[in-house]
């Protein structure tokens, strides 16, 4: 992102830009960000803080809340594994091979972001229900997906597919073919080239994409609630518990649990930024 010429005006006193509109554009930006983004998040924190530490802790560490955190984390974990494996396969095939329909498949990778989550939710539920196209054969194998934790993971994986594909694709594209060629000329097999040469180079991108996907899974609501069944202690994700507290008009409890989700999202953001920094450092020196 830091593409603007470094230190172009860095001598002595700061030089005034010849371009107009700084204070106006800056004022709009700061005012907008403050009013639209920061103030509501502050209002949430303020309301949760109004509970006092004891009540806050009692709410966010209640058994139903803890069960929902554990389910959300576990389901997001498995969803991330699925989306990382699928994303790696898709990035690999799309970058390295040419086949009919490649452009279409490439565009389809963005579909989970383009498709409204409620549509994805009811479509996946219909697909994986006991009598559904995929649910029926799976039920014959003794696996039930809809209204179970497996279903939660499947829905989370669907909505987070593009993260891994789109993070790994550019790194695979930039890989230097000569390194691979050298490994091959020294007698490495296909698998050895992949495991020893290519995989280490794309690992930071895989981790960055995977953590973006994981963060999305933790906060997802619309894609999940239709397929989840939403049984407390079993298939109730944290986002839904917040919604239920709102419907009970228990606003302080909703605010408290929402603050936990917000704080964990900010922690994930920190992790993601670190991983993306690594990814960039890994990818750039070659150019």
């Amino acid at each position, binding site marked *: 992102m830091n593409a603007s010429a470094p230190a172009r005006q860095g001598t002595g006193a700061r030089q005034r*830009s010849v371009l107009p*509109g700084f204070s106006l554009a800056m004022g709009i930006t700061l005012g*907008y960000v403050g009013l639209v983004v920061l103030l509501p*998040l502050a209002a949430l924190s303020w309301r949760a803080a109004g509970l006092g530490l004891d009540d806050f802790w009692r709410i966010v560490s209640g058994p139903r809340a803890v069960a929902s955190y554990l389910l959300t984390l576990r389901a997001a974990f498995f969803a991330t594994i699925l989306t990382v494996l699928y994303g790696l396969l898709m990035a690999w*095939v799309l970058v390295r091979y040419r086949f009919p329909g490649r452009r279409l498949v490439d565009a389809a990778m963005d579909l989970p972001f383009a498709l409204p*989550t409620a549509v994805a939710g009811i479509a996946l539920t219909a697909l994986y229900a006991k009598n559904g196209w995929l649910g029926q054969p799976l039920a014959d194998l003794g696996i039930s997906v809809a209204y179970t934790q497996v279903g939660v993971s499947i829905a989370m994986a*669907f909505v987070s*597919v593009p993260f891994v594909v789109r993070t790994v694709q550019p790194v695979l594209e930039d890989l230097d073919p000569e390194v691979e060629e050298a490994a091959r000329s020294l007698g490495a097999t296909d698998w050895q080239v992949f495991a020893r040469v290519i995989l280490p180079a794309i690992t930071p991108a895989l981790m960055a994409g995977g953590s973006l996907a994981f963060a999305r899974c933790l906060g997802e*609501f619309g894609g999940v609630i239709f397929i989840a069944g939403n049984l407390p202690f079993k298939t109730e994700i944290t986002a839904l518990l917040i919604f239920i507290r709102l419907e009970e008009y228990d606003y302080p409890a909703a605010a408290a649990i929402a603050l936990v989700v917000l704080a964990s999202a900010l922690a994930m953001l920190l992790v993601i930024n670190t991983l993306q920094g690594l990814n960039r450092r890994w990818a750039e020196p070659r150019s």
Partner: protein
Amino acid sequence: MTALYRPGRSESPLARRMLIGLALAMTALMIGLPVVIVFEQAFAKGVAVYAASLTNPDTLHAMILTLIVAAVAVPVNIAFGIAAAWTIAKFDFPLKRLLVSIIELPFSVSPIVAGVSYLMMYGGQSPIGAWLEAHGISLMFQPAGIVLVTIFVTSPFVARELLPLMEAQGREEEEAAAVLGARGLAILWRVTLPNVRWALLYGAVLCAARAIGEFGAVSVVSGNVRGETNTLPLHIEVLYHDYNVVGAFAAATVLTLFALVGLLAQTILAMRMEAREGRNPTGAH
């Protein structure tokens, strides 16, 4: 092999074919089938039932409200995106990276948390909400609240597409225009925006898609009143819980078509950007 070396031509043909086959099969299962089943379920009871479901007054109202929300949120965030990208790309000031992180923050906030935050800010129990109510204005559980929270959720899309591009393009062209006597808006209109128009459109398409499809945040601040405060995604949930499966999927076909048109537009714009601006859009968001 050496002269004709191309990456990806080196694996054994069998491995290559198997990987392509696996990728296509998994994509058909994971991404193709959910789209197909939307239409299958919507037409399960025939075209007449489908058409009747779509022209139901509550469904039509939900469509119109959804379009109104997007028609407000998208232009507002285009204006914000231009202002933010202009500020950050064309000037130097301290804490720039922090400002960028804050602009992108809504991408990391769960939609439910976004909705609850707006409820805590503008709901009747908050000081601001109480003050507004005393003046006869209520925002929550009204279309206005839906618009506000949609603006939050979609605020980074345009800025995030414009910013890296405008930073990469530098300031020389704008500075030249300024030295030649062009005023601010003329520089923006004649120099900056023509250089970034495809990225701007790309961001606007993403913004519109999200504004039309947003569910979690909107469901918190909507009163879920049929024919009044239901957007199309919310209306799908209502129909679905009424066991009106055809109705729910009929409404879903409309949103799916929007999504497919949006994807087509994204693909075309990405090709233009690659050709003209030499870079890909950000993709993941």
